[in-house]
Structures are given as structure tokens and as C-alpha cells.
């Protein structure tokens, strides 16, 4: 208890990754190229409709691990940081092909995490959550670093269903500059879909690109 009081009042600079890498999160309605460096995330992958049971369990597991790791470090007096916003990696639908049933969608949900967080801390968090009966899906959460490199990025305002239109604008922007999309697209959720009306939802859309001819 005494240790906790100490950590809570100790004035250490809290790390906010979103602020530290603010250039990587700059986005407006007009697409632009952004260089994204290597970043570490907590990952969970799954299959099913967004908002469905499997999806909700995955989000709960991801946040459960994220907060347990953070608070365990904090209690031990280690460097404090803010748990970042929720992000997701989604496969692109092929142009011209029918959009698959939502139940068949595969996704990876992620939360950016400081590099100093290590794999054994994740394991420990999962174990402690399981002991409390709060570990549903937690064992699927893992730590991974990715480097997206050059990306085209834009701010999408509106329902998630309408992202296709913004992604199409991003694609043609990239092509005009001699680039083509590669890999899967990345979504960074700035708004909370539980209460914000769909027309006002803000999402950063990011898509890695490469030079045509590569």
C-alpha cells in the first residue's frame, strides 16, 4: 500500500506515445504520405462481425492485458505511460469482387505499447487475469513490432461502412504519385463508437504503399 501511494504521487513524466509520435498521427481529410517508423503493439487477431461477440471479447482481452501490464509496472514504480487508443488492421476488399459476409471478416486489433514493455510482462498479466476469471481471450494477446514505412494516410469522418470511399480516394492519390497500395490497411480509432453518432466518428486510415514497378 505504501509503495502504491508513493508511485501515485511521484512526479515522473508520463509517456504518451500518441503525443511523442504526433507526426505519425497527423491526418486530414486530404490524403498525404507519412513515414511510419517501427512500433510495438499488443495484438489480438480474430474472425467475426465488428461489434459481434468474438470481436467484443477480443477488445476486452486486449484492454485487460494493456491495463494490467501498465498498472503492474506502475505499482512497481517503473516508467508510467498512457494506454494508447485502439487500432485495427483490416484486409482490403478486392475491387469488383463481392464483399464477404461480415461473419467471415478477419481482423487484428491492436494497442500501441512502449518498446520497454517485454513479452514476459504480457505473460504475467495474462496469468493474473486468468486467476481472477477475467482472462477470456487474454492468452491470444501478444506483443509484436511492425514497421509500416511509407504510407498514405487520411482522416475518415463518418460511419465505418463508408471507409471504402476514403480508401478509394487514398488509392488514387497514391497512384497519381506513382505508388501502389501494399499489405493491409490500418485504422486508428479517435472516437468512441459506443456513444458518438456514426456521422461524426473520426478514424485515421493508413495504408502502406510502395513505388509502382517494385
Amino acid at each position: 500500500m505504501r509503495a502504491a501511494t508513493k508511485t501515485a504521487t511521484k512526479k515522473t513524466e508520463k509517456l504518451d506515445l500518441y503525443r511523442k509520435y504526433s507526426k505519425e498521427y497527423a491526418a486530414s481529410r486530404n490524403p498525404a504520405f507519412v513515414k511510419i517508423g517501427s512500433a510495438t503493439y499488443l495484438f489480438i487477431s480474430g474472425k467475426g462481425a465488428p461489434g459481434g461477440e468474438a470481436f467484443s471479447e477480443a477488445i476486452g482481452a486486449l484492454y485487460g492485458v494493456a491495463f494490467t501490464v501498465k498498472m503492474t509496472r506502475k505499482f512497481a514504480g517503473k516508467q508510467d505511460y498512457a494506454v494508447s487508443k485502439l487500432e485495427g488492421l483490416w484486409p482490403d476488399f478486392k475491387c469488383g469482387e463481392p464483399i464477404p459476409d461480415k461473419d467471415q471478416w478477419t481482423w487484428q486489433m491492436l494497442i500501441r505499447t512502449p518498446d520497454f514493455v517485454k513479452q514476459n510482462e504480457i505473460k504475467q498479466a495474462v496469468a493474473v487475469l486468468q486467476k481472477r476469471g477475467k482472462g477470456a481471450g487474454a492468452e491470444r494477446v501478444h506483443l509484436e513490432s511492425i514497421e509500416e514505412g511509407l504510407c498514405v494516410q487520411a482522416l475518415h469522418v463518418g460511419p465505418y461502412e463508408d471507409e471504402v470511399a476514403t480508401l478509394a480516394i487514398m488509392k488514387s492519390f497514391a497512384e497519381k504519385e506513382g505508388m501502389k497500395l501494399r499489405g493491409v490497411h490500418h485504422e486508428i480509432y479517435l472516437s468512441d463508437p459506443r456513444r458518438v453518432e456514426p456521422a461524426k466518428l473520426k478514424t485515421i486510415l493508413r495504408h502502406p504503399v510502395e513505388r509502382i514497378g517494385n
Partner: protein
Amino acid sequence: MRTVTLQDYKRRILRVLTHIQQHLDEPLPLDELAALACFSRYHFHRIFKGMVGESVKEYVRRLRLERAAGRLKLGSASVIEIALDAGYESHEAFTRSFKACFGASPSHFRRIRRAQFALVPSGVHYRPGKTIQHFRSLRRGENMKVEIKQLQPMRVAFLRHVGPYNEVGATWDRLLTILGKDGHLGGDTMMLGICHDDPEITPPAKIRYDACVTVGDDFKPTGDIQVQTVAGGEYAITTHTGPYNNLSRTYSEFLGQWLPRSGRELRETPCFEVYLNDPQSTAPEDLLTDIYAPLAPQNSVTRR
């Protein structure tokens, strides 16, 4: 059985408005005023403020000043005598309040002898010996999004904060650190705040606020972290969007505007707040807070 109406709410508030005017020299404790209007002491001050547009304290202060203005205009009592009667301990404090209310110092006011009451939302002014028959009530709450839900009782671990409302962050920090390292912050955990006092009437140093986290039966109280049960039953719920320090505006609209038009009454248990997002990674204008107001069962409403 009969549904409670806006007119009932207004009638009960009018009773308080008149009572205050007739007893301006008395201490006017809130519990007594709440009882007079048949409101729960947990909710009375918010209903009053939401309906009248001023807190009880502001209304009492203004009526005392308006009475003082009348005496300045007509009588021959000295300014300091009038100041003391209005509940002020010094000439300076009285002058400051008086100026804020009437735009002129007491002595200047006496010279020009022109009583100009400031505009107030309720339209109610000091009229000695008269029963107040009517007051204007704002009509903001009509379009408020409110959901009514039946809740199960919730077991919560909590830490009590006593002090200014804007300093509850440190209490939260401590509670979440201890619960988090023990694995109590799983996916479906809810974070609740129960404010036992109103920041507008209780001195900041004495405000009691419980930072609460839902826990399972296996949680044992540890140190100063205790356990309580948040009452189940029917609740009206609305969402506040924006910084926490604007919550009182939403409370006013919810309990002072929506509630009187809802046909419902509140139960004798405090409101609570549920924090939907993490203030560390959310911009203040995007923060979402659900306000839960406990409803009395519909058939328990009696004619008052």
C-alpha cells in the same frame, strides 16, 4: 395511481421559493427545504438548480440583496446595518455582491433611488408578504437522450476521496494501480464515481467522492480500499460528452428539465457516474460519462 407531472414539480418548487422569501433571516438548511418539497435530499439541490436556473444558495443570496436594495431605497438604516441584515460581515463584501447584482454600489443606488433588478431566469424577485405564484422554467431537457434501464446490484471496490472534486484523479490512480496489478481490470470492468456532496454547496475540502471499480465476489477489502454494493433497480441514464468539470451542467438539464417532464420521481439513493473512456488517452472534449439517476418505482408515486 397518478403520474407525477411537470405541474407537480413546479408546485413543489414554488413552495420552496415562497418559504425562502418568508424566512430569509433563517439558516435554511437544504435537508429542511428538500423535505418541504418532498424531494430526496440526494437530488433536491440539482432539481432546484435545473428548474429555477440558480442554486438554492444563489437564490437566497439574491433575495437577501433585493430586500436590502428595497431598504436602501425607502428606509433610513445605514448601509452597514443593511449589510449585516443581508447576512454580510463587512461593508466591503456587501458592496461587492451588491454591485455584481445591481451594477451600482449601495450608496450610489440609494442616491439614484432606482431599483433595477437584474434579469434572472426564473423571473422571481423579492416581494415581501406575497406568495410566489409562478416561475419561469427553462425548456432545455425536452430533447435530451435518456434511456431507462433495470440494473442488477453491483459489487464495487472503492476508495473514498475527501477534498476538491477536481483532485479525484490521484485517488483513481491509486485505486487502479492496486486493482490493476492484481488482475481486477478485465475487459468488462466498469468505473463508477459516486459523489455524495454537490460541489456547488459543499466546501471543496469536504466533498466526499467514491472512486469505484466493479469487482467479483473474490475481491477482499484491502487497506483503505473497501467494498460496497451499488443499488440495483430502475435508472434513467443520459450521456455527458466533454470535460468532467462541465458535468454539473448536464446534471442540471437532466434532473431539472428532463426529470420533471418524465412522469417519474427519484429514489432515496445518490446518482452515480460511469466513465466510458480513459482520460489519459482521450481529449477532454471527447470524454464520455453516463449519468445514472435512480428512479422510484412508478406505482409508489403518491399525491403530494
